[in-house]
């Protein structure tokens, strides 16, 4: 999984594939690891993400919750129109910062 920037306070994830059940386990571990490093500004790059399933939404919310506890925020960028609509309907745009 390509990682773009490596700064102590900021981190961007680029899964590059659908955020669905099959990859959620790994994805969660990676997010967890970053959080343990004390990084509070995490951005997820949704390029090439065509679908987010329930498990995907779960991990995103969990990440938000974890970050909120630490006083950080989860941001999302390059969100495709479909996923944007989904987030919007589910009111997840109030939880995630959609860039």
């Amino acid at each position, binding site marked *: 999984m390509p990682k773009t920037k490596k700064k102590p306070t900021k981190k961007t994830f680029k899964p590059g594939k659908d955020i669905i059940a099959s990859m959620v386990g790994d994805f969660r571990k990676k997010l967890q690891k970053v959080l343990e490093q004390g990084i509070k500004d995490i951005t997820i790059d949704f390029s090439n993400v065509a679908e987010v399933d329930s*498990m995907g939404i779960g991990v995103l*919310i969990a990440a938000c919750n974890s970050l909120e506890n630490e006083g950080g925020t989860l941001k999302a960028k390059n969100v495709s129109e479909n996923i944007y609509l989904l987030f919007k309907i589910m009111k997840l745009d109030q939880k995630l910062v959609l860039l």
Partner: protein
Amino acid sequence: MSIQDDDTLRLYIEESGEHLADIENDLLAIESAGADIDEELVNKVFRAAHSIKGGAGFMGLNNIKELSHKMENVLGMIREREMVPNPEIINILLMAADVLRNLIINADASNDIDISDHVRALVSLSEGVTSDEEDESEVVDIPFPNRDEVFTISKNEISNMRKKGNFIYVVECDLINDIQLKDKTPTEFINKIEESGVILDCKIDTKSVGTLDEDLFKSNIPFVILYATILEPGMINVIFDVKETHLFVLEEDLTVNPVTESVSNEVSVSEGQEAITIEEEIQTEREESQVEDIHTVTIPVQVEEPVSDIKTTKGPTGVDTSLRVNVSLLDNLMTLAGELVLGRNQLLQAITQKDNHTIEASGQHLDLITSELQGAIMMTRMQPIGNVLNKFPRVVRDLARNLGKEVNLIIEGEGVELDKTILEAINDPLTHLVRNSVDHGLETPDERRKRGKDEVGQVFLKAFHEAGQVNIEISDDGKGMDGGKLAAAAVEKNLLSEQQAMAMSEKEKVNLIFLPGFSTAEKVSDVSGRGVGMDVVKTNLDKLGGVVDIDSTIGEGTTIRIKLPLTLAIIPSQLISTAGERYAIPQVNLEELFRIPAAQVKDRIEKVGDAEVVRLRGNLLPLIRLTDVIGLDSEYIDPYDKESKSDRRKNISDRRSKKSPLFNEDQEPESEEISLNDEESESYERGPERRYHSSSALNIVVVYTGALKYGLIVDELHDSEEIVVKPLGRDLKYCEGYAGATIMGDGRVALILDVAGLSRMANLTSLDGTDRAHEVAREQQFKNQKDVQSMLIFRNAEDEQFAAPLGLVERIEKIKRTDIEEVGGKKVLQYRGTSLPLFSIEQVANVKPIADKEDLLVIVFIVAGREIGLLATPPLDAIEESIVIDNTTLKQTGIMGSAIIRELTTLIVDIFSLVEEINPEWFGDREIVKNMDGETATILYAEDSNFFRSQVREYMEGEGYNVIEAEDGVIALDLMKKNVDKVTLLVTDIEMPNMDGFELTEKVRKIDSFSSIPIIALTTMASEEDIIRGKEVGINDYQIKLDKEKLLESIYNFLKK
């Protein structure tokens, strides 16, 4: 005070219930009468309110007393003509009556229910003051059930949704359990629910998701939706598919109550929270359904002011656990019970005395009584459908009012009786359909005026018995549905392909709205606005064994027909067996039974894509083998040793025919692998047990489930029998293919097949194979349009088949070879005192010489006025078939063309050219008739068959005439008109597409310049009626097709005149 303890109270409640039962329709009648009040009617309602009030005062039911008192006041003013009953007033009275009913049903809690809004509304009416307008911008908080979050939404939005006939639900679904684990994605889920309603608001309870440190797979992601839809509570879960306990209804008083909350639960009295909708009551009470209930249903009414509760509930004991039964029916039951006792005594006595004869006799007697008793008891379960239909005036009125439409509802056949269970279950679907008719079917008064219709729309509800079933029709005279647009919408949604859509009939297209996931309220409104939850309606009706069908004409309206069985408990059904198991198919679903004899299996079964289909009267019927669907091994009964063996055929049409090389050696190979050319080579073994005899015949049950008709292949067909339906146990609930079970006379269990379920299991859709079906239908049509040719087939050499038009044959003689005389180089036959010249085909055409046989045939023709005999050999046969004649490939002198007849290439003999070739001197030149200007005559020739057209044209052109050809009557008429001054004679076929010869003649005769033109009709065989009819319309002469001489003679004669 509890209702059970108090007989007086119960009596009061029952009595008041009866008073209230009619109030609704009476109030509606008062409304429609307007200022011109029917005093008697007002008095009736007044008295009802008065009696309720009186009793309530006595019982200490103060709320009931107060409300009925206030209603009485208003009614009093109407009676005294101090007030004109306008819709607003009636509305308030209706709502008050609803609340009153609710209060009475929950009499012991009634004093705690808040009725102040209604009292105020009624008081303000009697004081001539209307109630205050609701604050438009007011917002309300709607609590999440079991969670501490709320939705904040404006009251206005909610009441707007309600005005459109929506119910509002709070639904909690779990992204993990309800979506992920059901193989859905959130996007799909949201799209699906947005198809059937509007998401007003929704939230994910993010708190309960937890953080990354928790195990996601075990946690829940609760997603709470505030949802508006017109689906009734009983149907809502079809969309969401969540736990029933997670579905809540937002009541008119803005409280949130579980959809599933059952009446038997304790009724909480605070703030009128006992609101329970009738739908689930029906479900919970179905088991104990000896109840006659006054059907009152949640009707979303425009809320002018907060209404505490307009719902109906039934008390725990149920006010209407009593059932009205006709006394004569009861008497009948008593008599039968008496008979039963007598029968029993007789039987007991006979058993003690071991008197076998009497035992048998009383056995028969008991049998008779039992059937009669069963019938009588069934009768008590039958309830008039009016119980359901009579609530619709109110539903329609309220909805129409909210939508600003004027609707006249006409109900017919209230007296038609249906089993109570069915009656209860059709309530929801019917309500849905009626509301759809009013909401989407009918146009607004403005639109109606523009289209020149009466501003008042009509909705008909009609129930009637037919063929042992109850039919319900819901029709409106609204805008109808545009099948084309529906099909286009379905294509857009990828529910079917464009080709499929093109192949569909208008009716099929309209029925598309029953497809799951078809349409949405908003998106289709410009198309037709139907389809919301129509698939749900269909599913519900399917469950009842009902069938639903739509007919719609754009601009004229829509009719929806529902067919229901009379009762669910005992149904007539067809018994079949397959793989040694017996099954029952409900007669309602049965269209016909048919059997394809083994010899025809291969011809009649075709494969379209993956599906196997059979041709049935020009239609393609998809086939399902029952064993495949329910996963049994096919078996068959061996015709020789009567044992059942497993059947290994893969395709239905596979079989081992006698033609197969396997049987040539008169022995069956043990188990060698043989791949036959005419069958797909298959890798499995073809053992000796594969069948080729009568057991290869297919028994097909043609079943029908609404839009879909298919054939079910079974092993054996048995009797039809009335079976008692037993529900399947819980463990078998998910077996889609079965509707229930029954116990047969011999004590064995037979499963009842659910034909709709089976088709789903087989992934059968009515759309499959449509292209091919279309093609077949076209072929059939083509076939019907085409001339049927009568041909005589015979042989010359043994392996060459010939045919000649039967119409030219005079007779056929059998002769011996020795009868033929060769005189002067020519063959003749002494025949009736003259010499009959004999020819054989090989004299002219390049064909094999006539077989060297002792017995020969002479086919006698008349050519150029003489009889000639054509030598031939048997077999001889006459056929009447539509054959396609190829007039190029094998054409030669004496042979006009070829065709495939009886699977053999057959040469068609041109008898004229044959004779002409041998005896040209027989054909004297006729002078060609010319017109005044010295030009050759022009003949118009109308004929649809290419073969005949070119053939006859050749004859005529050969003679020197100019010929104009036309492929059918319409073209011929057109050409006649264009060539008024040229055409001097018309030769026409009779059977032609678009316009036949008779019609053409009639039309031609009407054209002035053609009023006396000679018209010659050509047919293969002219029947007497045809000739008479032809004379009537003005046909001058009939000639047989291909009788060149006579035709030319006739043309000559006419032109010469």
